[in-house]
């Protein structure tokens, strides 16, 4: 019994390693042997008595009376049959409870501990059956304790916090082990040594909350003085304590992860605040610079003032790119859906660049299709792509073409330059954050242009793609795709 109880969890593994029990006695069945013993026990004295009678008769008469022999043989045969029958019935009564116990044990080993064997009397057999019943009920009770314990631990979620976890574990321990009181002390278990057991008083129990690499505390409790406590009970308590230790460890890990997550959220907010502050603090002086230059330029035209206006616009767009990145990442960017003609916007975006030394060809084949987009965000995308084309195009003409896509309700804006183009291995990379093309390291820029542009296009329900370079093509060609409306007729 104690073997089975001591390592309840490891039961299947240890049973297979156990040696086969030795077989004692001849290979006859128990019942056959018992019957044989009873028959022999009854017949031997009978046979002896018969032989003595015959011998006395032979000595007295001097001859063997065949009739007497016949009677003796008949009585002998009848005795054998009678003895076997009686033995059969007696042993039947004897073996039936054994069979019932055997069936109960088989069921118990298959996991059904609820079967009890009913037996009357006070004999050895009754005591044997009684001890089986006790074993089964002890196992059953222990199993249900274990189930309650595991359930109690499973119900404890890390979100509940350490106090609630400890309170819960304490309550469950008290209920599962039938303790008068139970409590958990966190910290070094050595600070809470085992108390001495005083007969007749509540029995103190103790189990360390142990993990393979750490002892997080100790579970202490008191049992009613009448309650038995054996090694198996102690094992179970220690098992429970180790589960509580795991739950506490999980809680600590969960707290750490939660703290780190909160820290990241805080950092992200701080970054947003920072960008917002930077953007405001840059935009305020920029507004004055730009407005004064514009005003002076309108009074007395001067190309130098035009350059100041252009460059402050450029700086402003870089600031906006940073702000847009932050907004895209925090998901707070909500583009408007306005009806827009594209070609004039492309033209304006190009003019705003101030690249007067580079030729710009704009083909408008929109045929009345209008894009649905956020004008401010679209201007940002156009500016980034045209600025890229201008910087990487090597001074050659830049071409833009606006046309509806035949297959869906979309407008495509293709912007192509005749520069070095994009190497095949860079095709995916250029859309990532802080990336530039092959010559990128030497050139200015935030490295956010294409990343932000693609994200903005996608936020507007469109996309930005790098076109496949055809054989013999020079330069890079990007296409902006935007949701579009077909032309409306004059009402």
């Amino acid at each position: 019994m104690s073997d089975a109880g001591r390592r309840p969890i490891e039961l299947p593994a240890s049973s297979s390693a156990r040696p086969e029990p030795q077989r004692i006695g001849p290979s006859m069945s128990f019942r056959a042997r018992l019957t044989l013993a009873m028959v022999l026990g009854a017949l031997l004295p009978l046979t002896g008595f018969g032989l003595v009678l015959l011998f006395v008769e032979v000595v007295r008469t001097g001859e063997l009376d065949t009739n007497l022999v016949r009677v003796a043989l008949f009585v002998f045969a009848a005795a054998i049959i009678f003895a076997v029958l009686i033995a059969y019935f007696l042993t039947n009564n004897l073996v039936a409870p054994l069979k019932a116990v055997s069936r109960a044990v088989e069921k118990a080993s298959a996991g059904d501990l609820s079967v009890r064997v009913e037996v009357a009397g006070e004999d050895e057999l009754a005591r044997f059956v009684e001890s089986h019943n006790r074993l089964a009920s002890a196992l059953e009770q222990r199993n249900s304790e274990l189930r309650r314990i595991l359930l109690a631990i499973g119900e404890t979620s890390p979100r509940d916090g350490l106090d609630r976890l400890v309170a819960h574990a304490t309550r469950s321990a008290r209920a599962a082990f039938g303790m008068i009181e139970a409590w958990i002390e966190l910290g070094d278990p050595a600070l809470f040594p085992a108390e001495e057991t005083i007969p007749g008083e509540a029995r103190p129990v103790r189990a360390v909350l142990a993990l393979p690499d750490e002892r997080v505390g100790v579970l202490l409790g008191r049992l009613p003085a009448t309650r038995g406590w054996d090694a198996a009970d102690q094992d179970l308590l220690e098992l429970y304590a180790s589960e509580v230790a795991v739950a506490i460890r999980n809680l600590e890990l969960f707290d750490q992860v939660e703290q780190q997550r909160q820290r990241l959220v805080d950092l992200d907010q701080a970054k947003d605040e920072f960008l917002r502050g930077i953007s405001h603090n840059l935009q305020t002086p920029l507004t004055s610079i730009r407005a004064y230059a514009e005003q002076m330029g309108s009074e007395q035209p001067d190309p130098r003032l035009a350059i100041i206006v252009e460059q402050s616009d450029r700086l402003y767009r870089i600031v906006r790119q940073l702000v847009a990145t932050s907004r895209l990442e925090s998901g707070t960017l909500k583009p408007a859906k306005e009806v827009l003609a594209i070609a004039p916007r492309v033209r304006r975006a190009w003019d705003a660049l101030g690249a007067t030394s580079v030729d710009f060809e704009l083909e408008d084949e929109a045929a009345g299709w209008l894009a649905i987009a956020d004008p401010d965000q679209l201007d940002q995308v156009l500016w980034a792509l045209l600025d890229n084309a201008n910087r990487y195009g090597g001074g050659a003409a830049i071409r833009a073409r606006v046309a509806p896509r035949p297959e869906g309700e979309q407008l495509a804006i293709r912007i192509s330059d005749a520069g070095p183009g994009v190497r095949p291995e860079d095709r995916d990379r250029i859309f990532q954050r802080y990336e530039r093309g092959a010559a990128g390291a030497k050139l200015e820029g935030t490295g956010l242009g294409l990343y932000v542009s693609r994200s903005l296009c996608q936020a507007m329900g469109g996309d930005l793609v790098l076109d496949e370079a055809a054989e013999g093509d020079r330069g890079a060609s990007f296409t902006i795709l935007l949701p579009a409306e077909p032309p409306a007729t004059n009402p």
Partner: protein
Amino acid sequence: MLAGGWRAGAAPRILIVDDDPNLLVLLADQLRNDGFEIQTARDGEEALRRLDGGWPDLLIVDMMMARMDGLTLAREVKARADLPIIVLSAIDTADSKADLLEEVAEDYVTKPYHYPELRARIARVMRRLGDKVPRRELVLGPQLTLDLRRKAATVKGEPVQLTPTESRLLYALAANLGNTVGTETLLDRGWGDTDDADPSYVWVTMRRLRQKIEPDPDHPIHLVTVRGIGYRLVQQQPTQPA
């Protein structure tokens, strides 16, 4: 260009509120050159004090100010009088605060502003001053209610958000409820600050609006086309089945 455009007689008065003194001086200068009468205030409290001395025709308000932010000021102003407000701000329009802004401001311009664009938006807001639109919800039929101050509509019980342009067009139509508004007028109301807008903008936007607010977009009962002229916003009579 503007003076005398919407109101005969006195020059329109604008109150500019911004905590950047450089900008205040310059913007006041630019607007005075265009014939406006300008007052300035460095913060929200000063602005409210100036309001007590007489109401301007329009306010231009910076969003981020040290002592009282633009949003608080705009709410204070609207609590006193329904004065039109243009927000001039470094916060870009995609900001989450833009939603709050829409309840209180007629329009917004991001810094750094382009003066011609700002002027065009001032003109557009001023033109709309003559429009008399119900302050609260406008019930157009059993299945359509407009709430133009919140740029929202309720269609078949479901809330529908309108874009700024859509709500500007509806504003112009609602101001002339039941009467035809010409396409050119709508173009001017919706895209007055855009050089390259043409009538197809109006047609396409109206088509999209019908998809949003008409019970049956193919057979409009509220946004009715007046062939060759423009559009008319129609209110269904409660007794008349829709």
